[in-house]
């Protein structure tokens, strides 16, 4: 077994554990490389099937290629695809691109708040009707009690403190200082009514592991990750007003792996193109404690 085999086996075990223990389970799919690897691992875990609904929080500021890719894959792989949004903030233009709020507040409105209310079922969920090929309001408004997310420990400081199974209270809040113990491969699969558990099958993966696995398995990813000829590519994907490409000539997966292995990006944070992380020191941790991925 090589390192990727081990990472794969552990993630599959965690996914199956989640599927077994949580009746109302969903998986967050940001359309990025990590959660797409997670989606692929789900197909591994369930022998080609994806028996878990995928939830995407649509800020309506995503780079358009991401949404096209999402719906293409959802139709092709017959996914149970759901999106949620903060319709109120969008209608009231309480967003950064509209100039009414700063970046962090915009993230809070369009992502954290939208996520919280979509998971709880307070706000409408829109489900892709695979036959009609369009989204319709979903009848299921049951709160999700298990939420699978593709966060990685090496990505950024606050994520290195995560557990594989991490409890969140009613307000989606994360108590970083008092987390449950995890022993061997036993996780927190019991939870009090009203709380939910975030599940992190990719915690041990590094950015390089992700690309190595994408190459090994030939997983389709959004072309935005590759240099299209102008010497720039996205290393991390988000909303277009707050996401900048990095200078890179990597045109395919193999070239990205070479770039990452060479160490030329070693001192540049993976999320350096994500402006909201820079708003104040600890912006992302503040967001994450409030439920942001």
């Amino acid at each position, binding site marked *: *077994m090589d390192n990727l085999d081990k990472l794969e086996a552990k993630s*599959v075990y965690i996914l199956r554990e989640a599927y077994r223990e949580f009746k109302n389970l969903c998986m967050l799919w940001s359309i990025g490389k990590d959660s797409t690897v997670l989606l692929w691992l789900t197909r591994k875990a*369930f022998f080609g099937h994806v028996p878990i609904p995928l939830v995407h929080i649509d800020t309506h500021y995503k780079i358009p290629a991401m949404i096209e890719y999402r719906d293409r894959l959802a139709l092709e792989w017959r996914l149970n695809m759901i999106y949620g949004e903060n319709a109120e903030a969008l209608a009231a233009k309480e967003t950064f691109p509209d100039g009414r709020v700063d970046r962090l507040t915009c993230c809070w409105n369009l992502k954290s708040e939208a996520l919280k209310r979509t998971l709880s079922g307070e706000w409408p969920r829109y489900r892709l009707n695979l036959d009609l090929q369009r989204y319709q309001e979903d009848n299921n408004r049951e709160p999700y009690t298990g939420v699978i997310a593709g966060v990685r420990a090496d990505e950024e*400081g606050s994520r290195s403190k995560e557990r594989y199974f991490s409890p969140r209270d009613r307000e989606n809040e994360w108590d*970083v200082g008092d987390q449950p113990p995890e*022993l061997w491969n036993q996780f927190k699969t*019991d939870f009090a009514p009203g709380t939910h558990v975030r599940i992190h099958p990719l915690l041990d993966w590094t950015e390089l592991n992700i690309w*190595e696995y994408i190459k090994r398995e030939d997983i389709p990813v959004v072309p935005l990750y590759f240099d299209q000829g102008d010497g720039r590519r996205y290393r991390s994907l988000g909303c277009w007003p707050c996401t900048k490409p990095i200078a890179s000539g990597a045109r395919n997966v193999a070239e990205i792996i070479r770039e990452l292995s060479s160490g030329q990006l070693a001192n540049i944070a993976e999320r350096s193109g994500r402006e909201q992380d820079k708003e104040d020191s600890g912006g992302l941790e503040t967001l994450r404690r409030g439920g942001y991925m």
Partner: protein
Amino acid sequence: MNMLPRGQMNIVVLGHVDHGKSTVIGRLLADTHSLPEGKLEQVKATCERNARPFEYAFLLDALKDEQAQGITIDTARCFFKTALRDYIIIDAPGHLEFLKNMVTGAARAEAALLVIDAQEGIAENSRRHGYLAAMLGITRIVVLINKIDLIGYDGAVFAGIKQEYADFLDGVGIVPVGFVPVSAREGDNIATNSAHTPWYQGLTVLEHLDAFEKTAGNEHNPFRFPLQDIYKFTADNDDRRIFAGTVETGSIKTGEGVIFLPSGKKSRIKSIEGFHTSGGSAIEAGYATGFTLSEEVYVRPGEIICKDGEELPHVSSRLRVHIFWMGRSPLIKNRKYKLKLATSRSFVQLAEILNVIDASDLTRSREKQQIDRYDVAECILETTRPIAFDLVSANEATGRFVIVDHYEIAGGGIIMESIPDADSTLKDHIRRRETSWEKGDVTSSHRQSRYQHKAKFILFTGGADLKKREIARALEKSLFEENFITYYLGMENMESGLDADVTDVHEQREEHLRRLGELARILTDSGQIFITAVGDIDDYDLEILKMLNSPNEILVVNVGPDNFNNFQADLSVGEDAEVAATVNRIYDLLRRETIIPDYSI
């Protein structure tokens, strides 16, 4: 450039507060050139500016500050690499209140560096951490006797601490890989051999780490496949029924015979399933996979699949264990807890405390009646039904467990011995219940002569859910029309009523059976023929129901595929059985057992 994924190893640094863990980590990062560019110079410059002597521990603090961004740190990770592989250091805090985090960190580690201050000698957490590392299954431990410069590189002091700590570890069953005299501050024997310790001929800390073999040999142990789930996804006409899980140890090939434990059912591997892989005809330890079987068996997740002809795990409900307790409330007797062992979940009670060990000095107390937070204890646990397990000495993955209390993992433990089933707490309970049973003035013979029949509990089970209920209801109606006193209880009625307070899925089943058994005892005592239908009853479930219903008796009717291993139902019919004919056959049984009178005589 080498494009092959490099090997990785998780290590944890343990030891008492202020014995130099952070300095060791800082030194490892610096000496392996694993710090971000300019970090060393930057921290040195900061120290100079503030007129503080530079310390390697500051490196870690600087990294942590970046990671922590002002938030409380628990288990943090940092990385360094040698020519051989990448290391992930899990830094576990030394304070007692962070023990939960230390245990989490150490449980992920494959090797440990345990740091002891040469000046201060062995301290409370030096022992506690050593003991816990042993319990968590970390056998690769290197002991670093640090600050050796402060005792003038005195080999005799080193030898003294080495002897004392080796004796301690010996008491908990660990032989450390080595003892290294180090000064993390000066860099002695961390990455390079020190000229200050000519009396030490052993490896440096880095050499020790690189010399560790990755866990090997698991594929040569007996096959253990804890069944995580059984899938039957019907989308796209998929008709595979897949037994999913991870091969913990050993290996298996298609065509080989397997045994499920504790149920004892047998079958044969038909295929090894996977997605985007060839699947193949053999699989070994470490892989998360799935099988289809040649002959279908009906079991629940949590059983261990083993290989025919190999050494099998133990099956028992009494275990002698070592336990480490982290729960806010103590572990007490006469209370049910959830036990998770590999993929099984069962209910467990603390039956007996053999002794409570103070992990810091290994003194034992036999007087304690409960196990408090941070206690390590040797005790006997009793599960409500037999479970399959190995002794930890034979197989780690199936020889250790956690206990859940108040929705949280509150304790972890390892199994030292399987104890033959003596008097279980259930038997105890029934003995007590029956001796204190208050009898009315109407006896069962009074009832029999009034009702013209005896009491009986008729239990329908089997995979044909709709059919068995249909027959059960038809039987009730028919008996009623012949003036027998009878009652059919629908399971939903119980779930939404009597069982409404039981919300935990696993607890639901155990508790549901217990309540059903007690209810049956009461209803049969009232002289009725009590009928109900429950899915998935296996040998153990039935044993529990029989005991709870005793001294009255059960008649078991199975409809469709059954879940029994050794038990033979009183009547077994297929899914397509005709209702009226089956009711007649049950009548025959009731007559034969003289539950109802035989009119033909």
